């Protein structure tokens, strides 16, 4: 009998790991749903341990799922269930911090920013550029995350309880360096494309762009909301239009 866990099944179910996201156990019940098919003997301790508190980046959940699968294959008593719950709580911090900083804060926005820059550069061909840029972005993002999920599950299963060791994986600093460069390149592409788009119509448009840019920077430094920054920017664009043009609406 093949004893290997049904990885594809678990990983496909884990795509909905946030379905039960709640304030008490966060993604815990989502983990239970993902592992449901692999829980052979369903005793209450195993179910409670699988559904206990955990919260991390959804793609990084595969690492914890691999490790948890291994731990739940052994005998689980009330005592071990408590240990597993505590261990899940402990690995939440690295799973969340590393996953968020790599994927939410760099990989995802960098791809989206490059996609937007491509739209802005292509101007009247934006619709054609959209088809290619968005298809490429969706393919790259989803294939990369799926490959990572597979890698993560295998390594998590292999390491079991010692899965936190992956936080010291030598590839992590290298990935951060690559993502830092990608982030800078994407930001330069966006700033350049937006400047090109906004400055072409004339001085008024260029001034409005500059005002928007500075207001957002100020809002970030003063920790003001994006909503406030946007409305201040719109008001500033009115003021700039008022001083640089004359319309039938204005004196």
């Amino acid at each position, binding site marked *: 009998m093949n004893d290997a866990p049904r990885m594809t099944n678990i990983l496909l179910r884990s795509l909905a790991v946030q379905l039960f996201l*709640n304030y008490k156990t966060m993604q815990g019940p989502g983990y239970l749903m993902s592992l449901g098919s692999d829980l052979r003997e369903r005793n209450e301790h195993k179910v*409670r341990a699988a559904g206990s508190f955990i919260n991390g980046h959804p793609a990084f959940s595969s690492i914890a799922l691999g490790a948890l699968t291994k731990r739940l294959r052994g005998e689980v008593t009330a005592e071990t269930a408590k240990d597993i719950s505590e261990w899940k709580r402990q690995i939440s911090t690295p799973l969340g911090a590393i996953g968020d900083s790599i994927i939410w804060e760099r990989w995802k*926005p960098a791809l989206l920013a490059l996609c937007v820059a491509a739209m802005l550069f292509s101007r009247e061909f934006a619709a054609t550029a959209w088809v290619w840029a968005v298809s490429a972005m969706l393919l790259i993002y989803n294939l990369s995350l799926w490959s990572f999920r597979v890698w993560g599950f295998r390594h998590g299963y292999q390491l079991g309880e010692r899965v936190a060791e992956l936080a010291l994986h030598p590839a992590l600093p290298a990935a951060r360096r690559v993502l*830092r460069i990608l982030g*800078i390149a994407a930001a330069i592409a966006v*700033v*350049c494309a937006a400047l090109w788009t906004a400055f072409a119509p004339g001085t008024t448009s260029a001034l409005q762009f500059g005002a928007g840019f500075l*207001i957002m920077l100020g809002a970030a430094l003063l920790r003001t909301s*994006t*909503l406030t920054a946007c409305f201040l920017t719109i008001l500033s664009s009115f003021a700039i239009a008022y001083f640089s043009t004359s319309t039938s609406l204005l004196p």
Partner: protein
Amino acid sequence: MWLPALAGVVVYLDTSVIGQTLLGQPIVACVLYGLLVDRPEVGLFFGVLFELIWLANLQIGAAKFSEGSLGTLIATATAARVAPSEVTGEPAWIVLLLCTGLGLIFAHLGREVAPLVRRTMNGVAEKYVQTFSEGGSGGRWIFTALGVHVLAGGAFTLLGVAAGHFLLRLYFGEFYALGPGEAVVNSTDLLCSGVWPSLLGVGSAAAMIQLVARKDWLWVMVGGGILGALLL
């Protein structure tokens, strides 16, 4: 009304519940919606603008976050209902400006949606674990959880689009579906067209803030500025 609500459900599910494949991002979802209703230019306008603005809007842990994608969809769906301007044959700037404001406000109001759903899910999740531990499949609770998310995404989008139609009707009267007339366009286009470059400025800064550490901001501004100037 059913199409924006359906699109809202898809966007909400993809953004925070299932898959998170980027299908719900403004640059993807709004352009697709625009194509569906034969107004791709409206989808592209809001998709590009709001994608940059909400780039720094991270859905991390238990923190509150703006529903940027739903706000953008609401703006797109509302603007797409108004016919292009009689003068230019393109969407009138006054419509785009009003819908931008609407999208921003609803994105901000959306900060309360996730906490509400998560509080509801406290009980649903507990019942799912309980049913599972008693030997049941928990299917009923899986569908209940899914239903809560579908209702949240659909109802919120519907509320936004309905508010948008009411707002535009107030401004344009009962003929708003015909598109703004020449008088309105001529008197407002110059003033309202500033929404595009100014919010593009906001979006560029948001992209830089999100993607680059503060110590590297100068390099991005200088690099982007020089390259932009060379292209001009």
